[in-house]
């Protein structure tokens, strides 16, 4: 008999309209990294929320070391030694690292906080597990990678032995992912057991021992990573073979869709300019990709182009029309669609029904309104067509509140709305962030299709694979400037990486460089 530290047997959890978990069994051995693989909506998060006590299962039992346990809330889970790093960190931004680690388990003496002992303990832990953190820095000042290490330290400080990582790599740079993998291996050596939720196959292959695959709420099976390969896993996850993107030939014509000249956008974080004198063109029929590590001015570049933020200087021309100082609506009507980076902040009105979200860029047009009155019939018809065409799934169709939809379907809704505008320029910022393989494939296909229709696509992405897979031309951004222009067919992962971290600058971009004034 094998030694399971956690067993979840025949778990079933139903939400109105959906069975999120249907008879799922998951067994975690002591000292292993066990991956939980599945598309968005496969039920991974629900299963882990049950283990962590956020939900109670409708059926099934949870055993720890062979004994049935009843986990009613996260405190119970903590008492059993189960800790979780959530995808979106639960940290107090204005507190220091140490304050965050002890939060909820503050050591006190007669009601006064005593941090001396704790400080020692946290430093010991961070050294033992090689978790580099700046213990007195405030959370808002440290990098995402370090924030994640703080979350891990939080679990270790509470002496948890079962660690759940919910999509831990979604927010990290390639280097940070490497480091996280190392940390996970150290944790295992020290006797912890890890449940690792992911849909990134290569990460799972490189770090985990066994993997359990979920699909549409059902358990598909558990396999040893040694005995499997990426293709088999992806087939198990999606239920069919994944075809690579056939991006076809570069169809770029000479028609210039977007022309950016000497664009300067100020930064909200530091005194220097976030976008510092950038010029480029997007031609009809090409996917131009801007690669770079997060925070090198890509977001601000998009804000400047789309009018969400004021620019300092420069000129933006869309379809031969100067839109530098035009309003957002004028830009949109001139021919600009925008799939935003933050779909909750900019993309959707979460408390609105799906139909109103799908018409957010149309409602003011003739037909959707008559003399200032909203034409409900038209809105309904229009949104139902988009729902069908783009296969947007939701509990109650056009009347679903956007907040209650899954991330993938929220993104589909945004893409449907933006592409339906028939704009000549499509700006897509990390359109596949946090989505699963099937959804990513779909979005990539859509982007290629739009390109083939003769549109210009400006893709901003942090995922190098995506950059190499679907772009026709790559610009690398570093520190607010473009440092390289590359041909995806003739460059490599490593080469782009060097430009991304600023280790190399192409000669033609050096000429315009002005010394940084920091």
């Amino acid at each position, binding site marked *: 008999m094998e030694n399971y530290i956690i067993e979840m047997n025949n778990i079933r959890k139903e939400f109105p309209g959906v069975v999120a978990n249907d008879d799922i069994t998951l067994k975690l051995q002591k000292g292993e990294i066990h991956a939980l693989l599945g598309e968005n909506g496969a039920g991974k998060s629900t299963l882990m929320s049950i283990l962590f006590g956020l939900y109670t299962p409708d059926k099934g039992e949870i055993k720890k070391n062979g004994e049935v346990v009843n986990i009613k809330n996260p405190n119970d889970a903590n008492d059993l030694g189960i800790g979780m790093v959530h995808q979106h960190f639960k940290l107090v931004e204005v507190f220091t690292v140490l304050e965050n680690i002890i939060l909820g388990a503050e050591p006190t003496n007669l009601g006064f906080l005593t941090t001396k002992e704790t400080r020692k303990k946290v430093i010991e832990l961070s050294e033992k597990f090689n978790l580099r953190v700046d213990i007195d820095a405030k959370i808002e000042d440290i990098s995402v990678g370090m924030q994640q290490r703080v979350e891990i330290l939080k679990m270790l400080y509470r002496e948890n032995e079962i660690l759940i990582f919910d999509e831990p790599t979604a927010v990290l740079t390639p280097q940070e992912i490497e480091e996280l993998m190392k940390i996970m291996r150290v944790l295992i050596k020290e006797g912890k057991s890890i449940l690792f939720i992911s849909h990134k196959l290569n990460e799972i292959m490189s770090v985990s021992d066994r993997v359990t695959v979920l699909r549409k709420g059902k358990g598909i099976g558990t396999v040893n990573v040694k005995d499997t390969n990426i293709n088999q896993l992806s087939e198990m996850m999606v239920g069919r073979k994944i075809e690579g993107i056939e991006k076809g030939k570069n169809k770029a014509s000479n028609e210039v869709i977007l022309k950016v000249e000497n664009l300067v956008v100020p930064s909200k974080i530091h005194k220097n300019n976030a976008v510092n004198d950038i010029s480029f063109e997007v031609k009809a029929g090409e996917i131009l990709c801007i690669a770079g590590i997060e925070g090198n001015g890509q977001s601000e570049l998009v804000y400047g182009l789309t009018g969400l933020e004021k620019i300092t200087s420069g000129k933006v021309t869309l379809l031969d029309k100067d839109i530098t100082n035009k309003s957002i609506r004028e830009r949109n009507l001139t021919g600009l669609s925008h799939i935003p980076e933050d779909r909750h902040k900019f*993309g959707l*009105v979460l408390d609105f029904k799906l139909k109103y979200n799908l018409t957010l860029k149309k409602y003011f047009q003739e037909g959707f309104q008559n003399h200032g009155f909203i034409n409900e019939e038209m809105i309904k018809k229009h949104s139902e067509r988009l729902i069908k065409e783009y296969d947007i799934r939701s509990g109650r169709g056009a009347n679903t509140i956007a907040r209650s939809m899954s991330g993938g379907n929220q993104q589909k809704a945004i893409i449907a709305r933006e592409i339906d505008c028939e704009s000549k320029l499509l700006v897509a910022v990390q359109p596949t962030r946090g989505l699963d393989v099937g959804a990513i494939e779909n979005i990539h296909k859509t982007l290629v299709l739009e390109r083939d229709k003769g549109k210009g696509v400006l893709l901003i992405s942090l995922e190098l694979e995506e950059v190499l897979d679907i772009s026709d031309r790559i610009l690398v951004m570093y520190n607010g400037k473009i440092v390289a222009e590359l041909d995806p067919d003739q460059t490599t992962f490593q080469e782009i990486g060097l430009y991304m971290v600023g280790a190399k600058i192409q000669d033609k971009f050096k000429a315009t460089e002005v010394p940084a004034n920091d």
Partner: protein
Amino acid sequence: MIDFKFWKKSSKTDKKDNKDKEYAFLSAVISIVVGLLVAIMLLFLLELVAPNSDFSKPILGIKKYFTYSFTSTSTFFKIFYNAAPLMLTGLAVGFAFKAGLFNIGATGQYAFGAFFALVAAILWQFPWWAALLVSIVAGAIWGVIPGLFKAFFNINEVITSIMLNWAGLYLANLLFYNLPAMHTVLPNRTDNLAFANPSAILPNFGLNQLLNTSYINIGIIIAIVVAVIIYIVLEKTVFGYEIKACGANRNASLFAGIKTKSTIIFTMLISGGLAGLAGGIVYLAGTVEFTVESHLLAMGFNGIPVALLAYSQPLAIIATSIFIGFLESSGSGLQGLYSYEMTSVILSVIIYFSAFALIVGHFIKKILKRRKNSKNDQDNETSSDLGIVPEAKPRDDEQIDQKEVVE
């Protein structure tokens, strides 16, 4: 409760919408009942500590409180007389809520509107409808100032509108002193409209003599018509769509090309205008005169519970303002038994608890959800079309988990 039926009719689209509205209605009723019970307990408690306890007194008081409004046509019509301005200030607050703004300055806009209605009536000898228009404009001007600050400098509208409450009231006082033609009879009270300008008194079509009450006029009709107009604006028009989008997510609205700044400004303009109109309706009734006040007028603040209790729904505001109007006019029933302060305490307790309607609604949903879950255990076939659980608005910290799970 007229509007409750209206709700049902208007939302034929969706079963769940009705469900939500039933919860809202239920929670409002429960909050009110709890408020009443606490008020009654308070009366008994006071009697307990009184030197010579007489427990028949609170019972008599409660009885009087609830029957008083129905003892004469005058007391009955006073309900609606009170309700009209409450409805309008409630609409002012609720309308701003829809755009994500908290117009706590309704009382200042109310005072401003009231004063200028009288200026128009007494000094300029305007007829009633023109004086009402002046009150709207005055309130709107006072309301748009916080809107401008919010739109252009992102200064919190709560702070600016609170300060403008005092500024508005004292500016009205100052103007009052500097316009001696408005108070020829008494030094700190405007002249009675019956003498100064009878054409400025809101028409009542002779009903005042027929029903023997001075508390009847077209104010309540105007208020209800305005409520219906606001409902149509919010629910049926492009402007209303933009207001609600701005209220729910200003960034996404900006992204979609909505001019969020002008939406904020127009919202505050309209909100202020509604509060100003409330002032006009009160002071053009001919029953009260403007006096120099050193503390803020309660009317603007009472709009807040009116709006909260109605979930900011314009049609529901009709009902909640009539209810609170009833509570206010019933207070007079306790005269002789209890002091004026005591009546105010009882009224405030009820209003206070009414504002808990939101929390009560949350509880009801929770209880129903639990009951439904246990039912599901018994018979597994029931597929759910109720949809209470995932679409219940999650608390902020639950949001993420909820969203990811419900796919």
